[in-house]
């Protein structure tokens, strides 16, 4: 860490452009939107200040809580699904051989597809009539396991979570690979000399060295999962009967479909607050582990 007095001017100068841009385009709109949350407003015409009523209504709406629960399913799926898979792949795949390059690229490919394609193909995989999942189940004699995977409220949230995990392993894999590259080769050499290899090396050297990246990835998982929108929007639209509603689809529907702009803004502010809380908690938990 550089702490000298001389650095002050540099710090200010270096931060200025990003801070300006960021404040103007992100921070101001966020607070502006939070402000809309205090109004009853359809998005056009007159507004009526109603204090905290929108926020209170959201917190009393069972659909809001269902959406939050669904978001938590996705958070859990990302942290306990995406992160370990990406980590294992990154450790296995850090050679530059043709095969490793191929697998790395392949794992990333779902990311390049537009969510519409992802939604469509998973729609076909889960399709109640000619879907792959039901076909396989029938082929192995599990006929009574077949169902409308996206329409049955008992399972559809989990069904939706699978494509989301699958979709986003790629970027985390790349981040882990980049972090592993960053481990100075002296440490590799030192390991060899000390005889720290295999699992031992992984636990004692690799994981601690990329622990920062793991923390970042977990924060990204939480942030990404709580504002998740696209995949669910194209696969189920939050339905049927709001069974796969997420906070962001709930917000979107209120804002743009049923013309409750003020309420939608309040929900969106709640999303930010809940995310902050969860990330705060996760930071505290991970700090404990670190020491």
């Amino acid at each position, binding site marked *: 860490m550089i702490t000298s007095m001389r650095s002050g001017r540099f710090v200010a100068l270096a931060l200025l452009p990003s801070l300006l841009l960021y404040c103007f385009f992100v921070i101001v709109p966020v607070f502006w939107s939070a402000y809309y949350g205090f109004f*009853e407003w*359809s*998005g*056009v*015409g*007159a507004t009526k200040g109603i204090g905290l009523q929108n926020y209170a209504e959201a917190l009393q709406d069972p659909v809001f809580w269902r959406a939050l629960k669904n978001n938590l399913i996705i958070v859990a799926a990302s942290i306990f699904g995406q992160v370990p898979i990406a980590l294992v792949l990154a450790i296995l795949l850090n050679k530059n051989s043709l095969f490793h390059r191929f697998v790395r690229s392949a794992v990333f490919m779902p990311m390049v597809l537009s969510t519409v394609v992802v939604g469509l193909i998973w*729609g076909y995989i*889960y*399709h*109640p*009539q000619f879907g792959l999942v039901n076909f396989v189940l029938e082929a192995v004699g599990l006929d009574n396991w077949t*169902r*409308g*995977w*996206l*329409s*049955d*409220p008992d399972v*559809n949230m989990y069904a939706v979570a699978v494509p989301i995990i699958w979709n986003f392993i790629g970027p985390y894999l790349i981040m882990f690979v980049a972090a592993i590259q960053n481990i100075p080769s002296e440490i590799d050499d030192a390991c060899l000399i000390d005889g720290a290899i295999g699992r031992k090396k992984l636990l004692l050297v690799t994981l601690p060295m990329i622990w920062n990246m793991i923390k970042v990835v977990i924060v990204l998982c939480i942030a990404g999962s709580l504002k998740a929108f696209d995949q669910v929007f194209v696969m*189920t*639209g939050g*339905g*049927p*009967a*709001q*069974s796969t509603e997420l906070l962001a689809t709930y917000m979107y*529907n209120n*804002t*743009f*479909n*049923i*013309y*409750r*702009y003020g309420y939608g803004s309040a929900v969106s502010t709640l999303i930010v607050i809940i995310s902050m809380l969860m990330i705060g908690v996760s930071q505290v938990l991970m700090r404990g582990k670190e020491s």
Partner: protein
Amino acid sequence: MKFKKAWVLSASALAALVLLSACGSGNGNNGGGSADTGSAPADEPKVELSIWHNFSGDDLRAQTMRGLIEQYVAAHPEVKVDVQAIPPDGYKQRLKTVAAANEMPDLFLSNPGSMIAEFYNGDLLQPIGDLLEQYPEWRDGFLPGAFEGHTFDGEIYAAPVNLSPSSIMYYNHSLFEQYDVKVPTTWDELMTAIETFNANGITPISMGNKAAWVAQSTIIGTLADRVTGSEWFLSAVEQDGAAFTDPQFVEALGYFKQLADAEAFQDGANSIDNTQAEQYFIQGNAAMTLGGTWTLTNLAATASEEALEQVGVTVFPAIPGGAGDPNTITASTGQGFAMNKDVTGAQREAALDLIYTISGPEAQQQIAQSNTLVNYQVEVDPAKVTPLFNKTYELVTSVGFTPIYDAYLSSAGTEAVNNGLQELMLGGDPETVAQKIQNAQAEAVGN
């Protein structure tokens, strides 16, 4: 060694980035500049007009609508028209955003009923009644009730450019023949048909209710109207002497639940989209499907002629003891172009002219020939449209129209109906669903 290599790399990367940035910002300025300065050529147009619509696709109707606007642009060099064809999936979102920022276009396509009402209530529109007065023969050419969804306080705010029946029952002739089933005209016959088809592994009714408006628009509107009659519905919408918790509406929801319980719809109907359901029908997997004119367009674009020949059209069966007229189809007035309140003077003249060009008598004729039903008396030349369109046209002109739910209910009420129907299909209880619909509508009307 390592440093040197990295340095070369980064230097070249930086150079590339700088180049990119230079060219990027240069173009950015040009792009922005041309948008601003484009209005300053030698013979400067006096009037500027902006018009937004969502006919962005490649289908016949979209082409026709764009053609009509181009026709106006070509005939009026003195008017600079800024035409925006916005992808339908984002149309509402775009319009909502500019409305919230008070930057509405001069003319924009709006759905009748709740959508145009939102803008009317926000005091963003002005009536176009004087245009209709100016061309009385045009005004009188519209079918009865054509302006209903666009009228507020006795003033007309848009002229429909299409007619949108939403609950035409399409059925597959050969499947009905093969299993010796009568095309149902009563509830009992419908239930018998459902039973027979199910016994033979044929889906009775194909429905793609992922976007939850489908069951509402194509089934419940008609089904409930058979039970309750239109008057009850209109009173319930106003929350004036009728409520959605009334027994007749709960009964109607019960009928819908009966359909779901009898497995009238294919498994997982709530997870597949409308296009997929239509394809499922046209491939002969299902005996019936309900839909509007969009079904015609979609099928015409994707199905073989032999398949289309199998398709017949009729109305939803009658329900015993119901208060409504069974020989009806739900239909909405159709979309029309609404005018921004701030348009005045010469600009307003031009805007009215444009409206007349794209929804006047000749325009209606052209639109009808793009296999689109219009809310206007036209002679359709059978040679210029598809046979299935002709059949549908005959059916639609021989029946009465009843209100479509989402054209009259508030947006929140519509959302409650949409979700409620999905809930019923998942085993929900009609009374609970009715209560939710009532709450949503009452709250919206109360505002």
